Protein backbone atom coordinates (compact mmCIF):
# COMPACT_ATOMS: atom_id res chain seq x y z
CA UNK A 1 0.00 0.00 0.00
CA UNK A 2 1.23 3.50 -0.84
CA UNK A 3 1.57 6.06 1.89
CA UNK A 4 0.40 9.66 1.82
CA UNK A 5 1.08 12.45 4.29
CA UNK A 6 -1.60 15.14 4.32
CA UNK A 7 -0.23 18.49 5.45
CA UNK A 8 -2.99 21.00 6.14
CA UNK A 9 -3.91 23.15 9.11
CA UNK A 10 -7.61 22.54 8.51
CA UNK A 11 -8.98 19.48 10.23
CA UNK A 12 -11.92 19.42 7.84
CA UNK A 13 -9.75 19.36 4.74
CA UNK A 14 -7.55 16.65 6.25
CA UNK A 15 -10.64 14.58 6.96
CA UNK A 16 -12.02 14.98 3.43
CA UNK A 17 -8.65 14.21 1.84
CA UNK A 18 -8.09 11.25 4.14
CA UNK A 19 -11.44 9.80 3.21
CA UNK A 20 -10.72 10.06 -0.52
CA UNK A 21 -7.18 8.70 -0.16
CA UNK A 22 -8.34 5.74 1.90
CA UNK A 23 -10.84 4.80 -0.78
CA UNK A 24 -7.88 4.91 -3.19
CA UNK A 25 -6.08 2.41 -0.94
CA UNK A 26 -3.53 4.77 0.61
CA UNK A 27 -2.23 4.51 4.13
CA UNK A 28 -2.69 8.05 5.40
CA UNK A 29 -0.95 10.15 8.03
CA UNK A 30 -1.55 13.80 8.89
CA UNK A 31 0.37 16.91 9.89
CA UNK A 32 -1.02 20.33 10.81
CA UNK A 33 1.88 22.43 9.54
CA UNK A 34 5.22 22.22 7.73
CA UNK A 35 7.30 21.63 10.82
CA UNK A 36 5.17 18.67 11.93
CA UNK A 37 5.38 17.39 8.39
CA UNK A 38 9.18 17.49 8.39
CA UNK A 39 9.27 15.54 11.64
CA UNK A 40 6.86 13.00 10.15
CA UNK A 41 9.02 12.62 7.02
CA UNK A 42 12.15 12.02 9.09
CA UNK A 43 10.36 9.31 11.06
CA UNK A 44 8.87 7.62 8.01
CA UNK A 45 9.10 8.97 4.52
CA UNK A 46 5.76 8.79 2.62
CA UNK A 47 5.37 8.07 -1.11
CA UNK A 48 3.47 11.30 -1.64
CA UNK A 49 2.72 14.49 0.26
CA UNK A 50 -0.44 16.53 -0.16
CA UNK A 51 0.66 20.02 0.79
CA UNK A 52 -1.36 23.09 1.73
CA UNK A 53 0.08 26.57 1.08
CA UNK A 54 -0.90 28.77 4.01
CA UNK A 55 -0.23 27.21 7.39
CA UNK A 56 0.97 28.49 10.76
CA UNK A 57 4.53 27.74 12.00
CA UNK A 58 5.84 26.62 8.60
CA UNK A 59 4.12 27.26 5.28
CA UNK A 60 3.93 24.84 2.38
CA UNK A 61 6.62 26.68 0.42
CA UNK A 62 8.95 26.78 3.43
CA UNK A 63 8.37 23.08 3.95
CA UNK A 64 9.12 22.32 0.31
CA UNK A 65 12.47 24.16 0.53
CA UNK A 66 13.33 22.47 3.82
CA UNK A 67 12.44 19.08 2.38
CA UNK A 68 15.08 19.58 -0.32
CA UNK A 69 17.76 19.77 2.39
CA UNK A 70 16.67 16.61 4.18
CA UNK A 71 18.74 13.44 3.77
CA UNK A 72 15.73 11.23 2.99
CA UNK A 73 16.06 7.73 1.50
CA UNK A 74 13.82 8.70 -1.43
CA UNK A 75 12.26 12.01 -2.28
CA UNK A 76 8.50 11.85 -1.85
CA UNK A 77 6.28 13.24 -4.60
CA UNK A 78 4.78 16.57 -3.59
CA UNK A 79 1.32 17.63 -4.68
CA UNK A 80 0.39 21.15 -3.66
CA UNK A 81 -3.24 21.29 -2.65
CA UNK A 82 -4.39 24.81 -1.99
CA UNK A 83 -6.91 27.58 -2.52
CA UNK A 84 -4.14 29.70 -4.07
CA UNK A 85 -5.43 29.25 -7.59
CA UNK A 86 -3.59 31.89 -9.58
CA UNK A 87 -1.05 31.15 -12.27
CA UNK A 88 1.69 33.01 -10.35
CA UNK A 89 1.28 30.73 -7.33
CA UNK A 90 1.19 27.64 -9.48
CA UNK A 91 4.35 28.66 -11.29
CA UNK A 92 6.15 29.44 -8.02
CA UNK A 93 5.24 26.05 -6.56
CA UNK A 94 6.38 24.11 -9.62
CA UNK A 95 9.61 26.09 -9.79
CA UNK A 96 10.22 25.34 -6.11
CA UNK A 97 10.04 21.63 -6.91
CA UNK A 98 6.41 20.56 -6.48
CA UNK A 99 5.43 17.71 -8.80
CA UNK A 100 1.76 18.54 -9.18
CA UNK A 101 -0.81 21.10 -8.12
CA UNK A 102 -4.41 20.69 -7.08
CA UNK A 103 -6.67 23.69 -6.73
CA UNK A 104 -9.22 23.46 -3.92
CA UNK A 105 -11.99 22.55 -4.00
CA UNK A 106 -11.22 19.26 -5.65
CA UNK A 107 -13.10 15.99 -6.02
CA UNK A 108 -12.13 12.36 -5.93
CA UNK A 109 -11.54 12.07 -9.68
CA UNK A 110 -9.27 15.10 -9.68
CA UNK A 111 -7.15 13.86 -6.82
CA UNK A 112 -6.97 10.38 -8.28
CA UNK A 113 -5.91 11.70 -11.68
CA UNK A 114 -3.20 13.89 -10.13
CA UNK A 115 -1.86 10.96 -8.10
CA UNK A 116 -1.76 8.92 -11.29
CA UNK A 117 0.13 11.69 -13.04
CA UNK A 118 2.85 11.67 -10.38
CA UNK A 119 2.92 7.87 -10.58
CA UNK A 120 1.72 6.85 -7.13
CA UNK A 121 -1.84 5.74 -7.91
Amino acid sequence: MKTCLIVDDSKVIRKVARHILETLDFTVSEAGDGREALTACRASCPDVILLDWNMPVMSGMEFLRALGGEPLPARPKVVFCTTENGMAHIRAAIEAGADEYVMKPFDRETLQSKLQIVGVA
Partner: protein
Amino acid sequence: MSAAAHGQPTIDAGSAQVFAALLEARTGQRIAAARSWKFDAALKPLLQSLGLDRVEQLTARLMERHDTALADRIVDSLLNQETSFYRDAGVIETAAKLVHEQPAPARVWCAACATGQEPLSLAMLFAEAGGPMPEIVATDVSAAAIVRARAGSYSQFEIQRGLPIRRMMQWFESAPNDQWVAQPKLLATIAYRRHNLVTDPAPAGLFDLILCRNVLFYLAPHLREQVLERLAAALKPSGVLLLGAGETVIGQSERLRPCRRARGFYERVGAPDTPERLYTAR
Protein backbone atom coordinates in the same frame (compact mmCIF):
# COMPACT_ATOMS: atom_id res chain seq x y z
CA MET B 1 -42.26 16.14 0.94
CA SER B 2 -42.46 15.38 -2.74
CA ALA B 3 -41.66 11.98 -4.18
CA ALA B 4 -38.56 13.47 -5.82
CA ALA B 5 -37.18 14.48 -2.43
CA HIS B 6 -37.32 10.83 -1.46
CA GLY B 7 -35.43 9.84 -4.56
CA GLN B 8 -38.53 8.25 -6.11
CA PRO B 9 -39.06 8.71 -9.83
CA THR B 10 -41.56 11.44 -10.51
CA ILE B 11 -41.51 11.24 -14.29
CA ASP B 12 -44.74 9.90 -15.77
CA ALA B 13 -44.57 6.94 -18.12
CA GLY B 14 -45.83 8.98 -21.06
CA SER B 15 -43.11 11.60 -20.74
CA ALA B 16 -40.44 8.94 -20.25
CA GLN B 17 -41.54 7.32 -23.52
CA VAL B 18 -41.51 10.61 -25.39
CA PHE B 19 -38.01 11.48 -24.20
CA ALA B 20 -36.66 8.00 -24.83
CA ALA B 21 -38.05 8.11 -28.37
CA LEU B 22 -36.60 11.57 -28.94
CA LEU B 23 -33.17 10.47 -27.71
CA GLU B 24 -33.22 7.37 -29.87
CA ALA B 25 -34.36 9.25 -32.98
CA ARG B 26 -31.66 11.87 -32.54
CA THR B 27 -28.70 9.75 -31.44
CA GLY B 28 -29.49 6.06 -31.81
CA GLN B 29 -29.22 5.66 -28.05
CA ARG B 30 -31.74 3.51 -26.30
CA ILE B 31 -32.62 3.96 -22.65
CA ALA B 32 -34.25 0.94 -21.09
CA ALA B 33 -37.56 1.66 -19.35
CA ALA B 34 -36.00 0.43 -16.13
CA ARG B 35 -33.53 3.30 -16.26
CA SER B 36 -35.99 6.03 -17.10
CA TRP B 37 -35.66 7.33 -13.51
CA LYS B 38 -32.44 8.81 -14.79
CA PHE B 39 -34.47 11.32 -16.76
CA ASP B 40 -35.52 13.06 -13.56
CA ALA B 41 -32.04 14.02 -12.45
CA ALA B 42 -30.86 14.68 -15.99
CA LEU B 43 -33.70 17.07 -16.80
CA LYS B 44 -33.70 18.97 -13.53
CA PRO B 45 -31.30 21.76 -14.58
CA LEU B 46 -33.28 22.28 -17.80
CA LEU B 47 -36.57 22.47 -15.91
CA GLN B 48 -35.06 25.01 -13.56
CA SER B 49 -33.69 27.16 -16.35
CA LEU B 50 -37.11 27.18 -18.01
CA GLY B 51 -38.87 27.95 -14.73
CA LEU B 52 -40.90 24.72 -14.84
CA ASP B 53 -41.74 22.54 -11.86
CA ARG B 54 -42.64 19.26 -13.39
CA VAL B 55 -41.49 17.09 -16.26
CA GLU B 56 -45.02 16.93 -17.70
CA GLN B 57 -44.86 20.65 -18.35
CA LEU B 58 -41.73 20.11 -20.41
CA THR B 59 -43.39 17.32 -22.37
CA ALA B 60 -46.40 19.55 -23.02
CA ARG B 61 -44.25 22.43 -24.20
CA LEU B 62 -42.23 20.17 -26.48
CA MET B 63 -45.29 18.65 -28.08
CA GLU B 64 -47.49 21.71 -28.33
CA ARG B 65 -45.00 23.93 -30.04
CA HIS B 66 -42.99 21.40 -31.96
CA ASP B 67 -39.99 23.26 -30.64
CA THR B 68 -36.78 21.86 -32.20
CA ALA B 69 -34.51 24.08 -30.13
CA LEU B 70 -36.17 22.72 -27.01
CA ALA B 71 -35.81 19.18 -28.35
CA ASP B 72 -32.07 19.85 -28.79
CA ARG B 73 -31.80 20.99 -25.20
CA ILE B 74 -33.66 17.96 -23.92
CA VAL B 75 -31.44 15.58 -25.89
CA ASP B 76 -28.33 17.40 -24.64
CA SER B 77 -29.52 16.99 -21.07
CA LEU B 78 -30.03 13.26 -21.54
CA LEU B 79 -26.65 12.55 -23.12
CA ASN B 80 -23.79 11.38 -20.97
CA GLN B 81 -21.02 13.81 -21.87
CA GLU B 82 -18.54 12.68 -19.30
CA THR B 83 -14.96 13.05 -20.44
CA SER B 84 -11.59 14.24 -19.22
CA PHE B 85 -8.15 15.25 -20.38
CA TYR B 86 -5.89 12.30 -21.15
CA ARG B 87 -8.62 9.81 -20.40
CA ASP B 88 -6.78 6.50 -20.54
CA ALA B 89 -3.49 8.41 -20.84
CA GLY B 90 -1.35 5.53 -22.13
CA VAL B 91 -3.42 4.95 -25.26
CA ILE B 92 -3.67 8.65 -26.04
CA GLU B 93 0.12 8.87 -26.02
CA THR B 94 0.37 5.79 -28.22
CA ALA B 95 -2.22 7.29 -30.57
CA ALA B 96 -0.11 10.42 -30.96
CA LYS B 97 2.99 8.32 -31.70
CA LEU B 98 1.15 6.28 -34.32
CA VAL B 99 0.04 9.49 -36.02
CA HIS B 100 3.60 10.76 -36.06
CA GLU B 101 4.73 7.66 -37.93
CA GLN B 102 2.35 8.49 -40.77
CA PRO B 103 3.37 10.67 -43.69
CA ALA B 104 2.43 14.33 -43.22
CA PRO B 105 -0.01 15.89 -43.31
CA ALA B 106 -1.67 13.38 -41.03
CA ARG B 107 -5.41 13.58 -40.36
CA VAL B 108 -7.24 12.77 -37.13
CA TRP B 109 -10.96 12.48 -36.43
CA CYS B 110 -12.19 12.65 -32.83
CA ALA B 111 -15.76 11.40 -33.13
CA ALA B 112 -18.06 12.02 -30.13
CA CYS B 113 -15.53 14.44 -28.66
CA ALA B 114 -17.99 15.81 -26.07
CA THR B 115 -16.66 19.09 -24.64
CA GLY B 116 -13.31 18.82 -26.40
CA GLN B 117 -10.85 17.51 -23.80
CA GLU B 118 -9.96 14.58 -26.05
CA PRO B 119 -8.93 16.52 -29.18
CA LEU B 120 -7.11 19.07 -27.01
CA SER B 121 -5.17 16.28 -25.30
CA LEU B 122 -3.95 15.12 -28.69
CA ALA B 123 -3.31 18.64 -29.96
CA MET B 124 -1.00 19.35 -27.00
CA LEU B 125 0.97 16.16 -27.67
CA PHE B 126 1.25 16.96 -31.37
CA ALA B 127 2.37 20.52 -30.71
CA GLU B 128 4.93 19.41 -28.12
CA ALA B 129 6.36 16.78 -30.46
CA GLY B 130 7.04 19.44 -33.11
CA GLY B 131 6.93 18.84 -36.85
CA PRO B 132 3.95 19.43 -39.11
CA MET B 133 0.72 19.69 -37.13
CA PRO B 134 -1.80 16.99 -38.02
CA GLU B 135 -5.25 18.16 -39.04
CA ILE B 136 -7.79 17.40 -36.29
CA VAL B 137 -11.52 17.22 -36.94
CA ALA B 138 -13.56 16.95 -33.73
CA THR B 139 -17.27 16.15 -33.84
CA ASP B 140 -20.20 15.46 -31.55
CA VAL B 141 -23.93 15.13 -32.00
CA SER B 142 -24.58 17.68 -29.26
CA ALA B 143 -24.62 21.27 -30.45
CA ALA B 144 -24.09 22.47 -26.89
CA ALA B 145 -21.03 20.25 -26.48
CA ILE B 146 -19.54 21.58 -29.72
CA VAL B 147 -20.12 25.18 -28.65
CA ARG B 148 -18.29 24.45 -25.40
CA ALA B 149 -15.49 22.55 -27.14
CA ARG B 150 -14.95 25.39 -29.57
CA ALA B 151 -14.70 27.88 -26.69
CA GLY B 152 -12.08 25.69 -25.01
CA SER B 153 -13.13 26.98 -21.61
CA TYR B 154 -13.12 24.66 -18.60
CA SER B 155 -14.11 24.93 -14.96
CA GLN B 156 -11.60 24.34 -12.21
CA PHE B 157 -12.90 20.78 -11.79
CA GLU B 158 -12.73 20.00 -15.49
CA ILE B 159 -9.26 21.45 -16.05
CA GLN B 160 -7.74 19.43 -13.22
CA ARG B 161 -9.04 16.07 -14.35
CA GLY B 162 -6.20 14.26 -16.04
CA LEU B 163 -4.31 17.35 -17.18
CA PRO B 164 -0.76 17.57 -15.82
CA ILE B 165 -0.13 20.96 -14.22
CA ARG B 166 2.82 21.77 -16.49
CA ARG B 167 0.63 21.33 -19.55
CA MET B 168 -2.03 23.50 -18.00
CA MET B 169 0.57 26.22 -17.39
CA GLN B 170 1.82 25.95 -20.93
CA TRP B 171 -1.45 25.76 -22.85
CA PHE B 172 -4.17 27.45 -20.79
CA GLU B 173 -4.84 30.94 -19.43
CA SER B 174 -6.91 31.68 -16.38
CA ALA B 175 -10.12 33.61 -17.01
CA PRO B 176 -12.80 35.12 -14.75
CA ASN B 177 -15.17 32.85 -12.79
CA ASP B 178 -12.63 30.10 -12.19
CA GLN B 179 -12.43 29.26 -15.88
CA TRP B 180 -9.34 28.11 -17.73
CA VAL B 181 -9.24 28.75 -21.45
CA ALA B 182 -7.12 26.96 -24.03
CA GLN B 183 -4.78 29.21 -25.96
CA PRO B 184 -6.18 30.30 -29.32
CA LYS B 185 -3.22 28.84 -31.20
CA LEU B 186 -4.00 25.42 -29.74
CA LEU B 187 -7.74 25.67 -30.40
CA ALA B 188 -7.02 26.80 -33.95
CA THR B 189 -5.50 23.40 -34.74
CA ILE B 190 -8.90 21.74 -34.29
CA ALA B 191 -11.94 22.02 -36.58
CA TYR B 192 -15.11 21.44 -34.52
CA ARG B 193 -18.29 20.30 -36.19
CA ARG B 194 -21.65 18.89 -35.22
CA HIS B 195 -21.97 15.35 -36.50
CA ASN B 196 -24.23 12.41 -35.82
CA LEU B 197 -22.41 9.09 -36.03
CA VAL B 198 -25.59 7.19 -36.75
CA THR B 199 -27.09 9.32 -39.50
CA ASP B 200 -24.37 11.53 -41.02
CA PRO B 201 -21.72 10.50 -43.54
CA ALA B 202 -18.17 10.66 -42.18
CA PRO B 203 -16.31 13.96 -42.62
CA ALA B 204 -14.70 14.18 -46.06
CA GLY B 205 -11.38 12.51 -46.74
CA LEU B 206 -9.61 9.61 -45.05
CA PHE B 207 -7.98 9.56 -41.63
CA ASP B 208 -4.78 8.20 -40.09
CA LEU B 209 -6.43 8.01 -36.68
CA ILE B 210 -10.05 7.90 -35.63
CA LEU B 211 -11.06 8.06 -31.99
CA CYS B 212 -14.57 6.93 -31.16
CA ARG B 213 -14.51 6.35 -27.46
CA ASN B 214 -17.23 5.69 -24.93
CA VAL B 215 -20.18 6.25 -27.21
CA LEU B 216 -20.74 3.02 -29.16
CA PHE B 217 -21.88 1.06 -26.12
CA TYR B 218 -24.94 3.28 -25.90
CA LEU B 219 -26.07 2.19 -29.36
CA ALA B 220 -28.17 -0.80 -30.34
CA PRO B 221 -25.99 -3.57 -31.85
CA HIS B 222 -27.17 -3.10 -35.44
CA LEU B 223 -26.42 0.64 -35.27
CA ARG B 224 -23.03 -0.05 -33.74
CA GLU B 225 -22.22 -2.29 -36.68
CA GLN B 226 -23.26 0.40 -39.15
CA VAL B 227 -21.16 3.02 -37.40
CA LEU B 228 -18.12 0.71 -37.35
CA GLU B 229 -18.54 0.08 -41.09
CA ARG B 230 -18.53 3.81 -41.70
CA LEU B 231 -15.51 4.37 -39.46
CA ALA B 232 -13.61 1.58 -41.23
CA ALA B 233 -14.39 3.18 -44.58
CA ALA B 234 -13.05 6.51 -43.32
CA LEU B 235 -9.65 5.07 -42.38
CA LYS B 236 -6.64 5.32 -44.66
CA PRO B 237 -5.29 1.84 -45.48
CA SER B 238 -2.67 2.26 -42.74
CA GLY B 239 -4.98 4.19 -40.39
CA VAL B 240 -5.98 3.09 -36.89
CA LEU B 241 -9.18 3.24 -34.87
CA LEU B 242 -9.28 3.70 -31.11
CA LEU B 243 -12.36 2.79 -29.08
CA GLY B 244 -12.96 3.28 -25.35
CA ALA B 245 -11.35 0.97 -22.81
CA GLY B 246 -13.44 -2.17 -22.80
CA GLU B 247 -15.06 -1.53 -26.19
CA THR B 248 -14.28 -3.84 -29.07
CA VAL B 249 -14.99 -4.43 -32.75
CA ILE B 250 -14.71 -8.17 -32.34
CA GLY B 251 -17.87 -9.85 -33.51
CA GLN B 252 -19.25 -6.51 -34.70
CA SER B 253 -17.36 -5.72 -37.86
CA GLU B 254 -15.92 -7.76 -40.69
CA ARG B 255 -13.88 -4.83 -41.91
CA LEU B 256 -11.84 -4.21 -38.76
CA ARG B 257 -9.42 -6.29 -36.77
CA PRO B 258 -7.04 -5.73 -33.84
CA CYS B 259 -4.08 -3.64 -34.96
CA ARG B 260 -0.76 -5.42 -35.04
CA ARG B 261 1.25 -2.29 -34.32
CA ALA B 262 -0.44 -1.21 -31.12
CA ARG B 263 -2.47 -3.06 -28.55
CA GLY B 264 -5.97 -1.69 -28.03
CA PHE B 265 -6.20 -0.19 -31.52
CA TYR B 266 -7.98 -1.52 -34.61
CA GLU B 267 -7.04 -1.45 -38.28
CA ARG B 268 -8.74 -2.24 -41.55
CA VAL B 269 -8.78 -5.84 -42.65
CA GLY B 270 -6.19 -5.89 -45.42
CA ALA B 271 -4.12 -3.10 -43.91
CA PRO B 272 -0.54 -3.09 -45.23
CA ASP B 273 1.89 -5.30 -43.39
CA THR B 274 4.22 -2.93 -41.56
CA PRO B 275 4.62 -4.04 -37.98
CA GLU B 276 7.80 -2.01 -37.42
CA ARG B 277 7.18 -1.41 -33.77
CA LEU B 278 4.79 -2.74 -31.19
CA TYR B 279 3.18 -0.39 -28.70
CA THR B 280 1.60 -1.96 -25.66
CA ALA B 281 0.02 0.90 -23.76
CA ARG B 282 -2.86 -1.36 -22.80
